[in-house]
């Protein structure tokens, strides 16, 4: 019971947090009509909301929710890498047009997801919300991933020139780390995951929308 209340609170807070991010991003776009300051305006709410998602890994690991902690970890870390290790450290890349595209895609996806979770806890998910959750991904996923890949790509020149996050020989531990190469490998890593995750969601869509429609019919009968 207590865990349900906690999860309800968690999901509602996160939904509101992402709502704030969306509002700030869209407001800035409408006012200035260019992407330059969108990240600047919404970055505090964005950082808080996205970083809190780390808790979801804990929820899965302790069995509070029925997801795999490994899958949750992969999803959360991919956002956190783009946010904290790519976008935030490189101010030159924060004004590009791919940034608001990526942020807004994240916002819409997360708002739908968290409201879906919250209402699932009290068994009051309206069909339209289920429909959104299992349909929006068809375009949000490609838009979001494109935004993330473009963002990573856009920081490569700066990262290479400044040697940021990189480690050169000689050093005591005889290790070197070339951040631009790591980022390029990271981008390549998206390639096998994209189609797998997308097809998984397509399958889930068939299952969940079919089930939700049947549930709706049962309730009305």
């Amino acid at each position, binding site marked *: 019971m207590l865990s349900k209340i906690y999860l309800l609170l968690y999901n509602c807070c996160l939904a509101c947090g992402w709502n704030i991010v969306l509002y700030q991003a869209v407001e800035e776009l409408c006012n200035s009509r260019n992407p330059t300051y969108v990240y600047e305006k919404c970055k505090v709410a964005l950082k808080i909301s996205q970083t809190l998602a780390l808790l979801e890994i804990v929820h899965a690991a302790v069995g509070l929710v029925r997801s795999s902690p490994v899958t949750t970890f992969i999803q959360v870390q991919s956002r956190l890498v783009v946010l904290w290790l790519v976008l935030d450290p490189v101010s030159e890349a924060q004004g590009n047009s791919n940034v608001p595209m990526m942020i807004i895609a994240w916002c819409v996806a997360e708002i739908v997801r968290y409201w879906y979770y919250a209402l699932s806890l009290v068994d009051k998910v309206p069909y339209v919300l289920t429909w959104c959750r299992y349909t929006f991904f068809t375009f949000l996923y490609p838009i979001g991933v494109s935004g993330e890949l473009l963002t990573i790509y856009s920081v490569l020149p700066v990262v290479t020139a400044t040697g940021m996050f990189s480690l050169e*020989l000689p*050093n005591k*531990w*005889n290790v070197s780390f070339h951040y631009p190469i790591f980022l390029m490998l990271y981008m390549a890593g998206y390639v096998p995951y994209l189609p797998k995750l997308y097809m998984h969601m397509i399958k889930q869509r068939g299952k969940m929308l079919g089930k939700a429609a049947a549930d709706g019919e049962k309730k009305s009968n």
Partner: protein
Amino acid sequence: VVSTQSSGSSGINAEYGGPIFTYLIFYLARGPIYGAKGATTDVQNVACAMYVGHYVKRVLETMFIHRFSKATMPIGNLFKNCTYYWGFSAFISYFVNHPLYTPPACNLCLYIGLGTYLFGELGNFSCHLAFMKMRPPGTRTRVIPMPNSNPFTLLFHLVSCPNYTYEAISWLGFSIFTSVFYAALFTVVGGGQMLQWALGKHKNYKKEFEKYPKGRKAMIPFIL
């Protein structure tokens, strides 16, 4: 008990022979690879002997000592294992044999590292010999592992899989000797995998033998 350690002879030789080849590439072709001008240092030479020696020992053991429960290994496992062994081998070798390689600051570390490595190798070999003698040829009888006259096998009193314990010690020694991050990482990752295997085998032993010694742990004496 089948683990990914059991495999057909060609699989083993790819898994354990491959790293020798991968390590030696960086050791021998330093000119083309790094543009290095000078010869390798003593530390790099000994490190090469330690690394290659470990895998030569493994190949020989596979040919003459190990008795396997299963004849073949699924191809997916073989690919994954080879990537792991060859990959780490390349990373470790690249940094040990680099012209900008920095040996550990204190000479004592070199002696401690080498000594630890040798202790681990001898211990591991002793355990493999002991396992071979425990299982009569051609049979699949299983007995509770016990120490024999070799003092290294006394560790059987404390853990079910002292061969893994000694192997982890061996890699620890190599890491101390070379002071290379990827060697330390390999020790941790390999140690973790072996611990997982040890826990499985330990559980099986306890299930199979009612009188299995109570104080024994899986791989880490007194702890796990």
